[in-house]
């Protein structure tokens, strides 16, 4: 295999590896050096660490606990629209966080549906700001993920076992004890840890719903040290803490052996017996109905409230949309180039080197965007104006964040193309660009479209490192939208949110669809 990769590919792969290592490990070194002369941690910093752990733990527990009945219902019932619902469970992954937050405000906020209903009945309205608001938003994002992971566990139980259980006359309770509980025991820790890891790097949710010092995550505290006080020492120290938290959680995820993520095979329903009682039927319908209501109402509110003013959005929103498209498309291109270069390099190396390249490709899962942002700022600041580089830096960090997913989509397809057609290409002397153009790319259209769509959509909706660097004049669409929200111009914010939603989903759809169509021809 090693012979097949040409010098250009080797250089490209090496450059990609160096860039990724510099962005993840290099920025960490910069942060660590700066953190040496930081002031000591104060009570507020400890409070931020406590809050980060607490909200991530609660978010993981609630997401997983609520996902169990939903996954069970989806596993054993077939109904019209089930396939669509399972597909929709994957959508929150590319849903811009700040859009979801606005949707949740429209349902659970002080002027939201639930508060208005309560007030009609003479009760006090509910408040969303604080710990419960942050956890609510995290459950919104992670309930679908948990459901998919647990559903996979359910569907992995062979149908024969359920048949055997039925022939032995086991009650649903016995089935739960003998078949379902052991499966859950194997699946739940991994699912909970993944959600815990995702929630530890929460920034936009805490920014919008934290409600003050009581609801500050470490990631948010980094931003505050930076933008509120321009205290780089504290920002660096907090970044190190954030890295320690993420790395520990990521190692734990590795260790418990995560159930495979976005695999197929969720389409079928295991045939089941002894579950046709009206009680169980109602229970399952309730679980699915409530979950769908919880997940779809906030999005429906965005659409309903966003449409009326969509035609006359302020000029600042329009120009922010242009900037966001530029960032999203750059991030998509960069993600693909990095992922392909690393995947090619991994194919051309052996032993520990292959492992190192693969580890590098997924390393950014364990590094938070604001830690990288802080490190980049520290590195760039002495030489150039980081603020003027806000948009390129955002595209770069966004690309890095999408890299693990793009790599996982592309690497197996690349390996397969090389295995199947590589020898023929070798014998024809196809190398370099010709090989890429005629052999590799046509066979990678589907994963390429998916990976580019994912990267573009994630970047389009990202509100993280841009908040650290940009000034209002350079705002991206999510940042502009947050600005409208923060000044309580909710109608305009809803329209901007709808625009953002359409752009994110649209980018994903166009790329993903494009990949499929090209692959089919």
């Amino acid at each position, binding site marked *: 295999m090693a012979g097949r990769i040409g010098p250009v590919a080797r250089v490209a792969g090496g450059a990609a590896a160096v860039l990724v290592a510099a962005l993840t490990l290099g920025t960490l070194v910069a942060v660590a050096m700066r953190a040496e002369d930081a002031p000591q941690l*104060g*009570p*507020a910093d400890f*409070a*931020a660490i406590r*809050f980060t752990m607490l909200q991530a733990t609660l978010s993981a527990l609630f997401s997983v606990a609520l996902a169990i009945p939903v996954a069970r219902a989806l596993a054993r019932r077939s109904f019209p629209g089930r396939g669509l619902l399972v597909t929709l469970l994957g959508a929150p992954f590319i849903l811009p966080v700040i859009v979801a937050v606005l949707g949740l405000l429209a349902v659970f906020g*002080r*002027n939201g549906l639930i508060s208005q209903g309560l007030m009609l009945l003479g009760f006090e309205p509910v*408040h969303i*700001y604080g710990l419960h608001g942050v956890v609510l938003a995290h459950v919104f994002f992670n309930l679908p993920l948990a459901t998919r992971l647990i559903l996979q566990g359910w569907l992995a139980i062979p149908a024969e076992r359920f048949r055997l259980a039925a022939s032995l006359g086991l009650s649903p309770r016995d089935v739960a004890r003998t078949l379902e509980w052991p499966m859950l025991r194997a699946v739940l820790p991994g699912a909970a840890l993944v959600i815990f890891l995702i929630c530890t790097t929460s920034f936009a949710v805490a920014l919008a719903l934290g*409600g*003050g*010092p*009581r609801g*500050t995550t470490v990631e948010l505290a980094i931003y*505050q040290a*930076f*933008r*509120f*006080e*321009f205290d780089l020492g504290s920002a660096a120290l907090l970044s190190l803490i954030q890295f320690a938290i993420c790395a520990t959680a990521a190692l734990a995820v590795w260790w418990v052996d995560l159930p495979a993520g976005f695999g197929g095979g969720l389409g079928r329903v295991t045939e089941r017996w002894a579950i046709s009682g009206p009680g169980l039927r109602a229970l399952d319908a309730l679980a699915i109905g409530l979950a769908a209501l919880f997940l779809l109402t906030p999005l429906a509110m965005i659409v309903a409230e966003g449409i009326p003013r969509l035609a*006359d*959005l*302020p*000029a*600042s929103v*329009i*120009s922010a949309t242009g900037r966001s498209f530029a960032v999203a498309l750059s991030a998509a291109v960069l993600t693909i180039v990095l992922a392909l270069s690393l995947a090619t390099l991994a194919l051309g190396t052996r032993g520990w080197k292959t492992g190192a390249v693969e580890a590098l490709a997924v390393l950014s899962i364990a590094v938070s965007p604001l830690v990288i942002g802080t490190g980049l700022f520290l590195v760039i600041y002495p030489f150039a*104006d980081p*603020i003027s580089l806000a948009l390129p830096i955002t595209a770069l960090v966004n690309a890095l964040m999408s890299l693990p997913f793009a790599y996982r989509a592309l690497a197996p397809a690349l390996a397969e193309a090389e295995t199947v057609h590589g020898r023929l290409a070798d014998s024809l002397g196809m190398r370099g660009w010709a090989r890429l153009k005629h052999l590799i790319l046509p066979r990678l259209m589907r994963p390429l479209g998916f990976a580019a769509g994912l990267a573009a959509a994630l970047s389009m909706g990202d509100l993280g490192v841009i908040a650290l660097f940009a*000034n*209002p*004049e350079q705002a991206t669409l999510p940042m502009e939208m947050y600005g409208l929200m*923060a*000044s*309580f*111009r909710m*109608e*305009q914010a809803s329209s901007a949110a709808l625009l953002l939603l359409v752009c994110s989903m649209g980018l994903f759809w166009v790329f993903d669809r494009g990949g499929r169509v090209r692959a089919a021809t």
Partner: protein
Amino acid sequence: MTSRLTRSVAKEDIMRLPVMTAGLLALAAPAMAQDQPVLRVLTYDSFVTDWGPGPQIEEAFEATCGCDLQLVGAGDGAALLARAKLEGERSEADVILGLDTNLTADAAETGLFAPHGIDPSGLDLPIAWDDPLFVPYDWGYFAFVHDTALEDVPGSLAELAESDVSVIIQDPRTSTPGLGLLMWAEAVFGAESEAWWQAMADNILTVTKGWSEAYGLFLDGEADMVLSYTTSPAYHLISEDDPTKAAAAFSEGHYLQVEVAGKLAASDQPELADDFLEFMLSDAFQSIIPTTNWMYPAKVPEEGLPEGFDTLIEPEDALLYPAEEADEAREDALAKWLAALAR
């Protein structure tokens, strides 16, 4: 500062057309004003809104300066200093407008500001002014504003903390009113201020980044009181003919705010910047302030204060730390604030 009032109030009619037009004009502006020097003034968001002082001041200054005055909004007052530090000498801004005396010592220490060289005599401030770097343009007293329908209005900071009145305050790290309350509590309670903040924790509904967010939430009925100014009710009275908003008089006295502007040393338009600071104390500028920024003018214009300002409460005791002391007290006070509210 209190033009932020108008911003929140007018949020229902966002005036899209003017904004759109302004956006288009901004795009076209570089072409039209190519041969004119540009003066960039960094200020808080509410200053540059259509209903804030920005548009009138821009028009008045451009009528005489032969320049293009660009007022750029960059968050609330305290965030301006963080941005100035972050940009350092690379900043494209020439003037920063919207700091107050709690921040001037820290700002002076950065070495980013240049002396203004203006003779500060004839000012109508409640304090003497001799800062060589910063020029005051308006002032006011911080106060908690409430609807007159509120019963049992607290008469002091201490009573407020003991009551179950809900309040919205601003983050002292980003907002000058938020920082003002921090200093107010220090001035009144000294070593006991952390205990006061702990007692306040259950009264504080939320902490916002800036003044306008807080005032917007208050007008939406989210809380009983909001941290603002004794002059805030004048907006409701004069602009909306609405006498139902009042500022609560507190027996411990009210903390004073003097808002200032300063010239950046790295400015490429130092003369224009000087002209602007000079212009700030002219009648043209000062007569715009009371009914757009809703603060007391630093130099009362010839026509005097607008009608309606005479109805405002006037604190018997004005509290204010001198700039250096405020700077020294700030870090410690902030740590106490964070510790008390982070629980």
